[in-house]
């Protein structure tokens, strides 16, 4: 074996194999021990299946944060730059005769790092060659569709492995994610269970300096690995000390070591996110200070008695203390998933036993932000909460306090957003009560009119008249005043007015430009109709070529006006216009065009319990039922929505909301909040209802608005917070007669955006065949699609052509027109025949008399 190969193997062993264990002064012993410990573990796992590590266990997972990723990218870019400079410097220095002195700064490619970072951030592709890392979609544009969508987006955790794998393990709910990751908030479909969301109080750690911690460990009695033999290392009464995956040594009294470390952490001598975990099974003490671990705060209890006393809480309420003070004083501490295994955590203080080490702060914090909006989620069937987590992000409402100053491409706002009558603590903590996305609607759970099947809701027209469900949709349109390479640029002109005349004495465009100001840009507040010009721009005809500094004449410009293309009959308004310069220093003009909509049949609504439904019909108020005290519901929901969905939380929300409006106090419905008073109990709610003259079960005596007689049942009626979702019929409805066709096949185009036709698909075709509706098939598949007249030669069966001079069809292979028949064919069929012919396959048509 050559020395070179041996050296390479050695260097791989040194630098690549178990790279986290560093080789100092060619001492491979730590590495050997590490491998030995690994083997030991492996054998243990073979002998005993219980000793196997769970790869879905959250304690074995690390989250990658933006800082880590960017530092990785930076390191790569920086090192690439250095090696580049080195190569160039070598190049220069290798030359024999140099006239000038070597200036390294001249060799630096100026913004290679900036450009590299910018490229990675804008494309989302993380390509780090050094680590063979090629990852796509690492950056995302933050959703600003609604306030909750934004919060939900920033707490999202994406998995690294691909979604297509058919394994259930990683998708299943892990017990170890309790309190760290939300059990409800996950998308439906392919990413179900893989994409997760942080819980309310989760903290993700960042890297902490290792050196001081390592020396602290040695000070606390860790026996150095270097000084121990293999036998000594595994003596029965000693534990291995593993620090961030590195074996430091062993300790004879691991519990004492761990408690000392924890004490030091509680008094703030070491970082609050350092975790100490004694694993009795593996006879190890794991100390972790690395980044990406999830951890959460817990109240420390001494022998089952909470360290937080009444005066602490009073200080917190008065504002004299903050959460950080609690942390500093050692009343609460952060535990990561591993260290939780060493703790006995009581749910409430009264449940604590002398063995209890920690007490939960609040059980509702196991849920994330999106699931925290649901009142009484612990009474719902769990998929309903998951559906609501997805739907809350589509609700219209307030986006942010600066929503009217932002220039979003698409903005959905509610005209009169309300805060939910039935709130939760999470809602108050995240500020959903200030930036709500819904309205408290009085809902009657009954059937009405037959237009309420399949979760459709019946709406009260007067409620809509008074502003229920009104929303504003704003779309951004932009225009750029482009500068060209020959020094010319676009120009914006004063629009022609009614009395203006051009040379020919005509002025055809003034009507389309009425909304323009004298500066040629649409004025805010003007009503804009389809085909209205919103910027009267002109572009120079010559944009390329030599730099021209001469002033251009009017004839050198061609109009490049931008017209508004909206649906006919919609009255939109120019809301705002901003002028700014884009990154190429061109003047960029942005228009926000606003459209206010009232709900119509087909708009989608949803309560906070995953119960979506469209508006089935809108009914006059006088036809609506009314109660003994004159209350008329805003919407009617069909009771069939309840039995199969089992959303008991919605019923309690209705009761609590009803009690809330009658007694004038917001009621709470935080998850698992009944024992701690963060959720009102149904008994208490019922009592309030009775006190205000309602039935305890929330059912009212209603009169029919149509007949005037009382209804034959008591109706469950009260306020429920309803969200208007962004899916509106106005944006979706579509129908067409004749219209555009695809060039290639001459068949109608596809999709609403292209004014496409509605396809009679394969299954529909099958139905028609089964029914025997041959003429209908003929009409749908040919006459209304792509009819085409072809000349077919009966002799050879090939397609011919029509000779307009001779006024006959001619077969080009028989070279005559003797046996030509004219027939109709779908153009796509003719295309198929010809394409096959081009591939040396000859389809021949055999014609028979009909």
């Amino acid at each position: 074996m050559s020395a070179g190969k041996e050296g390479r193997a050695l260097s791989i062993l040194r630098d690549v194999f178990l790279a986290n264990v560093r080789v100092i002064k060619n001492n491979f012993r730590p590495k050997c021990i590490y491998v030995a410990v690994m083997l030991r573990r492996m054998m243990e796992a073979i002998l005993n299946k219980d000793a196997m590590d769970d790869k879905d266990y959250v304690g074995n997972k690390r989250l990658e944060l933006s800082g880590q990723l960017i530092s990785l990218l930076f390191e790569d870019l920086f090192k690439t730059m250095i090696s580049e400079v080195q190569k160039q410097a070598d190049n220069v220095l290798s030359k024999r005769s140099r006239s000038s002195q070597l200036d390294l700064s001249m060799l630096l490619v100026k913004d290679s790092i900036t450009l590299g970072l910018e490229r990675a951030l804008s494309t989302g592709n993380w390509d780090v060659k050094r680590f063979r890392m090629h990852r796509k979609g690492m950056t995302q544009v933050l959703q600003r569709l609604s306030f909750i969508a934004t919060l939900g987006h920033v707490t999202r955790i994406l998995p690294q492995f691909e979604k297509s794998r058919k394994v259930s393990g990683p998708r299943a709910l892990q017990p170890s994610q309790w309190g760290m990751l939300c059990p409800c908030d996950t998308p439906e479909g392919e990413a179900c269970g893989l994409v997760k969301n942080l819980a309310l109080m989760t903290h993700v750690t960042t890297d902490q300096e290792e050196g001081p911690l390592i020396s602290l460990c040695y000070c606390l009695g860790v026996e150095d690995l270097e000084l121990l033999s293999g036998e000594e290392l595994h003596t029965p009464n000693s534990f291995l000390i593993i620090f961030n995956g590195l074996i430091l040594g062993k300790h004879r009294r691991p519990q004492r070591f761990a408690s000392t470390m924890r004490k030091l952490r509680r008094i703030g001598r070491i970082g609050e996110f350092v975790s100490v975990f004694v694993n009795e099974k593996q006879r190890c003490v794991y100390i972790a200070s690395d980044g990406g671990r999830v951890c959460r705060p817990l109240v420390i209890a001494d022998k089952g008695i909470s360290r937080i006393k009444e005066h602490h809480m009073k200080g917190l309420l008065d504002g004299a203390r903050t959460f950080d003070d609690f942390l500093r004083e050692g009343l609460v501490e952060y535990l990561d998933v591993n260290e939780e295994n060493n703790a006995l955590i009581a749910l409430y203080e009264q449940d604590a036993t002398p063995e209890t080490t920690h007490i939960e702060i609040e059980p509702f914090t196991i849920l994330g932000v999106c699931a925290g909006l649901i009142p009484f989620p612990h009474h719902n069937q769990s998929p309903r909460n998951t559906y609501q987590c997805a739907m809350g992000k589509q609700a219209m409402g307030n986006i942010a306090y600066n929503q009217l100053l932002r220039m979003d491409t698409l903005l959905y706002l509610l005209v009169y957003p309300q805060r939910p009558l039935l709130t939760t603590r999470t809602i108050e903590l995240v500020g959903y009560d200030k930036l709500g996305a819904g309205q408290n609607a009085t809902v009657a759970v009954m059937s009405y009119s037959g237009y309420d099947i399949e979760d459709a809701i019946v709406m009260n027209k007067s409620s809509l008249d008074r502003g229920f469900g009104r929303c504003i949709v704003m779309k951004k349109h932009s225009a750029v005043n482009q500068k060209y390479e020959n020094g010319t640029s676009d120009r914006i002109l004063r629009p022609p007015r009614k009395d203006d005349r051009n040379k020919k004495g005509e002025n055809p465009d003034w009507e389309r430009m009425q909304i323009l100001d004298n500066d040629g840009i649409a004025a805010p507040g003007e009503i804009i109709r389809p085909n209205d010009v919103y910027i009267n721009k002109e572009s120079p005809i010559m944009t390329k070529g030599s730099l021209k500094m001469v002033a251009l004449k009017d004839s050198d410009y061609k109009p490049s006006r931008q017209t508004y293309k909206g649906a006919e009959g919609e009255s939109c308004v120019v809301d705002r216009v901003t002028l700014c310069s884009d990154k190429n220093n061109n003047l960029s003009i942005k228009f926000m065009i606003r459209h206010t909509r009232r709900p119509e049949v087909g708009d989608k609504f949803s309560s906070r319990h995953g119960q979506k439904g469209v508006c089935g019909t809108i009914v006059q108020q006088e036809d609506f039922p009314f109660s003994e005290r004159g209350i008329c519901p805003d919407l009617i929901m069909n009771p069939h929505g309840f039995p199969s969905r089992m959303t008991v939380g919605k019923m309690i929300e209705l009761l609590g909301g009803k009690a809330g409006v009658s007694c004038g106090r917001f009621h709470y419905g935080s998850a698992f909040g009944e024992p701690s008073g963060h959720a009102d109990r149904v008994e208490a709610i019922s009592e309030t209802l009775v006190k205000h003259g309602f039935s305890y079960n929330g059912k009212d005596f209603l009169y029919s608005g149509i007949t005037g007689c009382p209804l034959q049942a008591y109706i469950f009626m009260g306020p429920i917070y309803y969200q208007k979702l962004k899916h509106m019929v106005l944006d979706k409805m579509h129908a067409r007669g004749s219209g555009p066709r695809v060039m290639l096949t001459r068949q109608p185009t596809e999709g609403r955006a292209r004014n496409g036709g509605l396809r009679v698909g394969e299954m529909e075709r099958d139905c028609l065949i089964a029914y025997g509706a041959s003429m209908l098939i003929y009409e749908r598949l040919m006459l209304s699609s792509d009819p085409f007249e072809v000349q077919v030669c009966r002799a050879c069966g090939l397609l011919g052509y029509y000779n307009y001079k001779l006024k006959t069809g001619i077969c080009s292979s028989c070279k005559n027109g003797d046996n030509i028949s004219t027939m109709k064919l779908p153009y796509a069929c003719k295309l198929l025949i010809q394409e096959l012919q081009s591939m040396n396959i000859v389809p021949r048509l055999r014609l028979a008399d009909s």
Partner: protein
Amino acid sequence: MSDSEPEAMAEADGVPSTKLPPHLELRRTRVLCKVDAPDNTDTIQYSGAYASLGHENSLRFADFCKDFRVDITRISDDDMELDMVGVDPSIANAFRRILLAELPTMAIEKVLIANNTSVVQDEVLAHRLGLIPIKVDPRLFDYLSENDTPNEKNTIVFKLHVRCEERGQRLTVKSNELMWLPKGSEFLKTSESLTSTSKPETYTSFTCSQDSMPEFAGNPIRVYPDIIISKLGFGQEIELEAHAVKGVGKTHAKWSPVATCWYRMLPEVELMEEIEGEKADVLKQKCPAKVFEIEDLADGRKRATVARPRACTLCRECIRDGEDWEKRISLRRVKNHFIFTIESTGALPPEVLFTEAVKILEDKCERVISDLS
């Protein structure tokens, strides 16, 4: 209502009618509100429904005149409660429906915005203005049909011009700021050429000032005060003209003359057996509406009585605890006695609203009769 010739009608049909047995009479006249659901909610209209029992069920004008009664129990400027006795639910409901949807009022329909730099969008501002009740008698105005020009007989014009002048202050614009323009619109139509010799055309064509009309002399048209229209920051300004026209609530709720209007059937609480002693106390405690009272009997015993049946909200607390309570108390609603509540928005006083509703129903009936004949 009219008492012209009841006798003649009564004599016209001379079929003798026997009384119904009490259990059927109860079903005919009362809604029984049981724990799980109300019972007998419908009314029986068919004249021969009890023919086999010899009871004539047709409605007789004489009986109607004898039984029909309207008592006003409470009245104030903007709401009233009245008892309407002796009609079918359909008639009471007709009044309710007419009051909600068919009585005209004036409401702002067109808003000409000259300037609006407030945070409230133009459409939203216009919508808010539309919902403000206008205190004016709609009977003094005509409907503005599509081809009409707005004039003093069909349009009321208001002006709103506010601007927040104080730095660092928020100005709350309330409906009081809406100024009535009796002479009509002040905004000039810009499309008219300036060379026109006649006086500049505005968006309305009033022939005379509205305040010269006798109805409004010394009685300016006002809107309902203290409704927040918008809030202005420093330098923000709203300048607009609002044109109110006549309309009905069917088209848009803003034209509804009532905030709401509803009725309930007269509650009737019947004790099916004597409730004495401790049970009487329990019963009294149960009812949040304080329907029951305790009566001291001569021999020192206590007995529950129904003191205020009208107060019953039908919370069903008294019959909630088990079947024995259900048997003791019977909650009912009288099918032909309606406690009608009208909450006016301010355009017309509630008593006028009701009489107007009666007139509309009368017109409708006459239309049907004339169509039939």
